[in-house]
Structures are given as C-alpha cells and as structure tokens.
C-alpha cells in the first residue's frame, strides 16, 4: 500500500509540473481531503443505520438463516471457516446486500466480516487468504439490479433502461470468477 500511495502522489506532482497542471494538482490536494471528510460524514449515517438494523437481524437469528442458505457457495470460497462462524454470517449478509444493489448496507457488513476474519489471521497486519478473498468479492461485486446505471439510462431517453441487466450479470459474474480464481491460485502458491 505504501508504494501505491507514494507512486500516485509522486506521479501526480511530476506530471502536473511537466504538463502545467500543477495548479490543478494543488487545488485537488486541498479540495479532495475536504471531500474525503465529507464522504465519511455522508457514509456515517448509512453505516450507523445499517449496523443497527443488521444487529437486530443478528439478534433475531435472521443472519444465521441466510448464512446457512449461502453456505454451499461460501464454504467453498472461504477455506477453514465453519458454517456457523460469526464471520461467515457477516460474509453472507454482505453478499446478499451486494446482490440487491444495497452498497450502503453492504459496506458495514463487509467491514464487520473483515474484522472477524482479521481476528483469525495468522499474522497480524498482513492480509490472510480469506481477507483477500473478502476484499476481492467486494471489488468485483455482483449486482442483480444496477439501479444507478438504469436511472441514468432512463434520464438520457433510453427505450429500455433495464435491457442491459443480462449483459451486466454475465460480465460481472465472469469478472468475479476470474478474480476469485486468481486469489485461489495465489493462495495455493504462497502459503500464509
């Protein structure tokens, strides 16, 4: 992570100097840091709401039900996790929320799963294979209904805003498969 962060900043400053965009880079540095705080403040409401709602689902035993429903898939993807592991429940709820297109609900659930996976990680501060899998599942998330895109298509006068759903599903399922396979291959080559 330190290399990505460093490289992005150095590249931005060097490129800005050579292309004469350095003023814009300066402005971006200031405005984006403010924007990041605004983003977290915006996110905080959703994080609190969904953490609260999901706590109710958890206490009522709803999350266990969904977790056991998804367990044939999740047990195969996440190695060494039992069906009734608390991390497994958070993972299942995260996947469910992602599929419904509820990004705001999926993030807090995913973060909770990450914390639970981190407790089981063999080396602290280093991502375990299951943690990598969890993050990759979320960077390549599968959406049943791409609501934002459909709304934009409608706004621009599409005859059929929802017609792209099959194409989106096929594409995202295949890219997800590729990412999961990549993690699996890596996990086999490099033990934790």
């Amino acid at each position, binding site marked *: *992570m*330190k290399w*990505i*962060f460093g490289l*992005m*900043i150095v590249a931005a*400053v060097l*490129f800005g100097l050579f292309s004469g965009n*350095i003023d814009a880079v300066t402005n*971006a540095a200031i*405005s984006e*840091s403010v924007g*990041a*705080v605004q983003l977290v403040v915006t*996110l*905080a409401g959703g*994080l*609190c*709401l969904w*953490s*609260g*709602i999901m706590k*109710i689902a958890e*206490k009522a035993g*709803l999350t266990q039900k969904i977790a056991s429903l998804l367990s044939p898939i999740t047990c195969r993807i996440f190695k060494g996790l039992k069906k009734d592991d608390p991390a497994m429940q958070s993972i299942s709820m995260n996947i469910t929320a992602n599929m419904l*297109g509820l990004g705001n609900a999926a*993030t807090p659930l*995913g973060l909770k799963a*990450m914390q639970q996976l*981190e407790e089981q990680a063999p080396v602290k*501060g280093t*991502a375990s294979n299951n943690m*990598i899998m969890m993050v*990759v599942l*979320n*960077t*390549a998330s599968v*959406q049943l209904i*791409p*609501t934002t*895109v*459909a709304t*934009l*298509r409608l*706004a*621009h*006068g*599409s005859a059929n*805003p929802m*017609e*792209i759903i099959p*194409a*989106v599903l096929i*594409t995202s399922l295949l*890219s997800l498969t*590729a*990412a999961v396979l*990549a993690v699996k291959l*890596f996990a086999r080559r*490099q033990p934790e």
Partner: protein
Amino acid sequence: MKLGNLIVPLLIALIIIYGLVKKVDVFEVFVEGAKDGLLVAFRILPVLVGLLTAIGMLRASGALDALTSLCAPLTRVLGVPEQVLPLALLKPVSGSGSLAVLENLLTQFSPDSYIGRVACVMQGSTETTFYTIAVYYGAVKTTRTRCTLPCALIGDAVGLILSGFVVRLLFGVA
C-alpha cells in the same frame, strides 16, 4: 413507484418485524449496532483522506488522460470502443468520477447505441476497486495486502474486456 426504491424500506420493515416477533428489544439493539457503525466511520476516515487526496491529485495532473491515450491501441484490438476508455480507467479509482464520465458519454452517444451500452455494462459490472480496498483494509489496519490489488485488477480487466464482447453478443454493434 420503482422496485429499487421499494427494496430498502421493505427490507428495514421486514427485519424490524422479524425482530419484534422474536422478542428482540429492537431499539436497544439498534442503538448498540449504530454505535459500531460510528466506530467504523471513525476508523476509515484517515485512510480515505490519504487515498482520495492522492487519487484526486493524480486525476487533476492529467496523468490519467495520458494513460488513456497510451492504452488506446490496445483496446482497439480488444474491440472496446476507445470513447469508453476514460471510464474504464477511472472506474477502479473513483465512483463519482466514473459516474460523471458515464453521464458525459450518455449525453454524447445514445444509451441505446453500442458505445452507450458498453459504457453502461462497464459501469454496472465493476466496483471502485481502490476505494474498496482502502476502506476494507483501513477498517482492520492491515497494511500488507499481498495479492489483493493484482487479483482485484485481474477481475476488473476481465470485466472491461468482456463488456464489449458481451454487448456485441447480445445486441450487435448497431
């Protein structure tokens, strides 16, 4: 009344009702859970300030645009129209940025054109990879992420290449 708008309130109501039936003190438990949410927000803030600033600077410097023109010959071979390339490059980095590009593309080209459809499929089928990685690892303070970024980018690349292919398969090039 759109289905998308109905899902959220229905889901909340269903969970609350389920909780009440199972005799859960729904408000007490809700507040307890909401506190966890606030802690998460607090923890991801410094990480997001760092990464979003770096991404914003990179975008403003014009380096991303330069990368776009550099990649143009490659995407032509893959059958992805070069007009959607800025979207493909921006999507892993910035959700709001890529949404702005999509908005721009749909103003130039009809949403029912080949370019419009490819752009929509691309936007719908991938996530903002860097942002997701930053938030997820930020929450657990993990700094050595091993193969996370390459694996996630492999998924993104497959999505990017296939979005052109799948649209051609289902709709043709018209």
